[in-house]
């Protein structure tokens, strides 16, 4: 028999092209996220620059070799401030996202696992929370505390668990009606075992994805609160306080104190969202079986 000549199947859609674009997006996102993590972890201790150092003589210098991002209105180097700011923002974003996800998963799983009146009351509470704009709620929470990192974390965390709770509840409810849960019950599994062994593992990828997607959102929220002057104290560099502090200079035509912190908000958050998107495609059930058995 003649040797078989194989060719790639004419892939579906612009399959080849999107695959390349997708890979490119994932790799560039990964590169940016890696760079950001290195910058915030490694640069401050190693470089040991004083981000608070004031040089009034150098105030509002445009970008140059010496100060690639320029300086602000009291002569502090903006690149250094941006890296420190990102460090604070990322910390706030990650901790807040974890808080929100843990609260959301617990509430959602509790509601679904108990069912009945517990479910009804909990989900009605979620609706009530959701009916208030969460930025407003966040402002209300930070206003109760002295400005600082932790009130912001609490404010962002406590206003963002709602969607996670809904996702987790829906997922647990749908898993709970699967025949494999019936089979587990018939096999003598306790309620606890069914939840821990069969329900939660099915939900965790979704919850993890929600957490990652929430990091950029939380960063934006921190920035928004700080921009409104309610978040971090103004001397502490965070991306939000940087943009806020730059408002007056922007009116004077000095663009760099606004642009660079702004880019520092946008680019890393997009990169994180890009990675989360790739993860979502991985856990998408339609892609699970490559064999089509």
């Amino acid at each position: 028999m003649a040797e078989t000549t194989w060719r790639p199947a004419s892939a579906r859609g612009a399959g080849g092209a999107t695959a390349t674009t997708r890979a490119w997006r994932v790799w560039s996102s990964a590169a940016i996220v890696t760079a950001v993590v290195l910058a915030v972890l490694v640069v401050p201790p190693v470089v040991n620059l004083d981000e608070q150092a004031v040089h009034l003589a150098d105030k509002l210098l445009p970008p140059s070799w010496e100060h690639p991002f320029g300086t602000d209105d009291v002569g502090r180097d903006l690149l250094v401030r941006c890296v420190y700011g990102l460090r604070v923002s990322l910390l706030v974003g990650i901790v807040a996202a974890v808080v929100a996800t843990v609260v959301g998963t617990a509430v959602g799983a509790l509601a679904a696992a108990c069912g009945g009146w517990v479910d009804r009351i909990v989900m009605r509470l979620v609706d009530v929370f959701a009916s208030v704009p969460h930025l407003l709620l966040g402002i209300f929470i930070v206003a109760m505390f002295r400005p600082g990192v932790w009130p912001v974390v609490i404010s962002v965390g406590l206003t963002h668990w709602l969607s996670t709770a809904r996702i987790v509840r829906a997922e647990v409810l749908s898993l709970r009606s699967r025949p494999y849960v019936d089979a587990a019950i018939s096999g003598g599994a306790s309620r606890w075992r069914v939840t821990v062994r069969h329900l939660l593992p099915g939900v965790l990828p979704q919850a993890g994805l929600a957490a990652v997607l929430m990091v950029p959102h939380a960063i934006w929220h921190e920035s928004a609160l700080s921009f409104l002057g309610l978040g971090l104290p103004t001397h502490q560099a965070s991306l939000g306080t940087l943009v806020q502090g730059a408002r007056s200079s922007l009116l004077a035509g000095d663009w760099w104190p606004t642009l660079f912190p702004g880019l520092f908000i946008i680019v890393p958050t997009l990169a994180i969202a890009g990675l989360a998107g790739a993860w979502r495609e991985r856990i998408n059930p339609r892609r699970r079986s490559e064999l089509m058995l």
Partner: protein
Amino acid sequence: MLELRSVTAGYDRRDPVVRDVHLTVAPGEAVGLLGPSGCGKSTLARVAALLHRPDRGQVVIDGEVARGWRHRAPRAQRTAFGVVFQQPRLSADPRLTLTQLIAEPLRATGRAAEVPGRVADLARTVGLGDDLLARRPHEVSDGQLQRACLARALVLDPRWLICDEMTAMLDASTTAALVAAVEGYRARTGAGLLAVGHDKVLLERWCDRTVHWDELSGDAAADRTT
């Protein structure tokens, strides 16, 4: 003796899908329940296996009236039943390997020590090769996965088997193999069987007697034992 007495069940109290059904399975007997799809026979099967609480009526297992359903049923009562469902894909936790799948009831009942021996034993009974046991559900075919699901149902030595359309998705040879495995188990242990399905030829060949759904409900009841 497994008795369903005037069972009414469903998902909406105003419109139950199972109405006043009587059905009896004697020890060691194989009863086939025939009915069109969507008639409620799967719901009845879940009631019989204590997996769905009926709105009215009783399930009596060897003279003992069932008081609770699902987790509220005593473990000894729940595990007296081995259940196999129609769709193996939905009946298997996608994260477990076939070995873990089959062993799960042993672990859940604190008999983990017996796992290696029992799993190997049952894998042979249902015709699963060793190389398949390490795989996860998406790496095997429907027929292979259903064999594992049957092994799981047998692992606690149930006195009653409830097979809900067990072979509806399978080819003729796998169907015959699974039925042979069930019958082998029953011959060895004397377990009773309630096989629910829509394939008249299959159930009549497989079971001691078959009842049609229409004969069960309401006045027609009385479960004519032949």
